[in-house]
């Protein structure tokens, strides 16, 4: 299915990452945003509040982030593509209903323009320290998908991808950008609507008497209905059976949770999205994502000039983690240098997959400003020894 031209601002623009996220969401067909102001993400909501009345969307500024996320889940069941946008403190508050979205298998998107934490931290300055929270933040076992754009153009494209993946897999999808990407202004090319592929919602074709809301086929993803279609569905955040009815037993728990997890884990190969740079002859690799991946480039160039064969491996989809690819790197590389704006989050995933086969080092950063390329260069040099 192609994008609705009404929402697509085809042409060349000069946009910051936050505004590009808004345009991506509108192009992808989102027509509902419930949010609460928080730096550095607010510009996404601001632009959407301006644009939605022209495209038939509804923006509501809620009383808090718990309400925002709950409204997004409600709106999705009402039959619209819905998203919210926030940053660290708000992301924490959204965890409750992100869990609900995961449990109800609700397609929706959460954009997190990351800032330095913990707590109020650095409201106006960047961080990448919510990566593990995106993966594990709500209680219980579940799977989500997370993408990490590194430029305004990428914001536009990754938000579209996020919306599409949320529909395809019926999971909340996180767009893990950061203050730098959110506030940097660059050229953004928005293609014509007929070049933007849109994932339609997977509605059931079964009549109400045959339909079971949580009965999944081989792909482990059930088909959906929306409120008002006459199916009289019941959905609950309690552990439930295929009918959607609560069942308090370990057997029901095993069946449901296993499916929630496996519907992503068993299809992780389809969810590999990586950008590579100078990997052809690389002996050392930098693993980095989001804004940090761009800061690595001058360090990589400097090392290359000195003859160090270093490449860059950037996961665009961070969750599910590209395990096979990182295991492959561990087999081939002399060292993996992880560059992220935190004190080790994805680093531990890389280390887990490397399984002692190669040296994995971390160039940590508490957030607030990007890494110094010099620090990254030193780590590359060390890894190449």
């Amino acid at each position, binding site marked *: 299915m192609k994008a609705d031209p009404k929402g697509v601002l085809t042409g060349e623009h000069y946009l910051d990452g936050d505004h590009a996220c808004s345009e991506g969401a509108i192009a992808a067909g989102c027509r*509902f945003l419930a949010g609460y102001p928080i730096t550095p993400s607010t510009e996404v909501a601001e632009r959407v509040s301006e644009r939605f009345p022209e495209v038939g969307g509804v923006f509501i500024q809620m009383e808090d982030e718990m309400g*925002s996320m709950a409204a997004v889940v409600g*709106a999705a069941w*009402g039959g619209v593509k819905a998203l919210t946008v926030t940053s660290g403190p708000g992301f924490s508050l959204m965890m409750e*209903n992100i*869990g609900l979205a995961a449990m109800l298998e609700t397609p929706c998107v959460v954009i997190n323009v990351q800032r330095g934490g913990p707590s109020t931290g650095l409201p106006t300055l960047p961080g990448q320290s919510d990566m593990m929270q995106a993966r594990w933040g709500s209680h219980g076992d579940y799977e989500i998908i997370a993408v990490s754009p590194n430029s305004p153009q990428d914001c536009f494209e990754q938000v579209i991808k996020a919306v599409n993946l949320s529909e395809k897999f019926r999971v909340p999808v996180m767009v893990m950008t950061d203050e730098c990407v959110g506030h940097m202004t660059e050229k953004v090319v928005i293609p014509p609507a007929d070049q933007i592929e849109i994932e339609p919602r997977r509605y059931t074709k079964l009549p109400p008497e045959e339909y079971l809301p949580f009965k999944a086929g081989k792909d482990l993803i059930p088909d959906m209905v929306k*409120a*008002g279609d006459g199916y*009289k569905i*019941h959905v609950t955040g309690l552990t439930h059976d295929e009918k959607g009815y609560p069942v308090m037993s370990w057997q029901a728990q095993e069946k449901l949770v296993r499916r929630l997890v496996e519907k992503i884990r068993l299809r992780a190969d389809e969810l590999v999205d990586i950008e590579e740079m100078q990997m052809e002859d690389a002996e050392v690799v930098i693993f980095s994502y989001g804004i940090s991946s761009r800061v690595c480039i001058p360090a990589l160039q400097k090392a290359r000039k000195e003859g160090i064969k270093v490449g860059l491996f950037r996961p665009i989809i961070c969750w599910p983690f590209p395990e096979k690819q990182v295991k492959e790197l561990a087999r081939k590389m002399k060292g993996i240098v992880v560059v992220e704006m935190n004190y080790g989050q994805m680093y531990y995933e890389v280390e887990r997959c490397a399984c002692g086969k190669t040296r994995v080092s971390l160039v940590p950063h508490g957030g607030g400003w990007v890494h110094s390329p010099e620090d990254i260069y030193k780590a590359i040099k060390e890894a190449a020894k």
Partner: protein
Amino acid sequence: MKATQVAPPVETAEHPMASLLRMDRIPHIWCPTCGIGTAVTAFAEALKKVDIPLDKISVVSGIGCTGRVAGYIKLDSFHSTHGRAIPFATGLKLANPELKVVVFSGDGDIAGIGGNHFIHAARRNMDIVVICVNNFIYAMTGGQVAATTPLTANTSTSPYGNFENPFSLPQLAESCGAVYVARWTALHVRRLTRSITEAMNKKGFSFIEIICPCSTIYSRRNKLGDGLDLMKFYHDNSVIKHGADTREMAIEYQKQIVVGKFIDRERPTFLDAHNAWMKQRLKDKFIAHGGPQC
């Protein structure tokens, strides 16, 4: 001796509410003598009276004893998270304005953890009906003190008596902008049914409080007798005062309960105000949200 004639088996006769309940989930979890059953009956009766297609009515509940209502009503029904029934309903309603969305939940859900959502939905005049069963405590978790527990009442976390001032929910609803406010007890089934019917036929944020102190825990801890004693208490102590000043109906321990329809007024709903304003500002550029789009 000839066998005595037995009455026709009741279980084969269809329950009068069978078409509106998920009979495959009955028996329900509520205690004998609990007022939630009465509240659900009043709601089911109201569903028969309103002129809204059942397919277009959704029920949203939060968590707790009353939070289980969504699980028994045979409509599109959503059992959401604790306190978030109102924002969930907000999203559902805005996504598809054609739906009549009813929030059916308890006092802990609506006035405690969800209090912020309650006041803001009333302020915005979100077009939803909120039915709040006030049982004075957190019953599902074993009877802890709530934002609605009358002063001095004994609960499991106020073992020496409650010293916190409770909310008066009709006053809160009115002051925040609700267009319809009523309160009944679980004894007033007929009047409650009429109020639910009126609220469902009304546009805007409608609020109905149903007083039914938990007959198992609250009643036992406070030595108030069983369900029948509670009914007698409502009968002897509730006073119908339609249009009463909502500032004067705080519920005190074992004192008079003012019931009735207090507020019935008109205000533009969130979506009507949104659409009218955008139309005025953006003229032909404005495209109203026309319901489900995916």
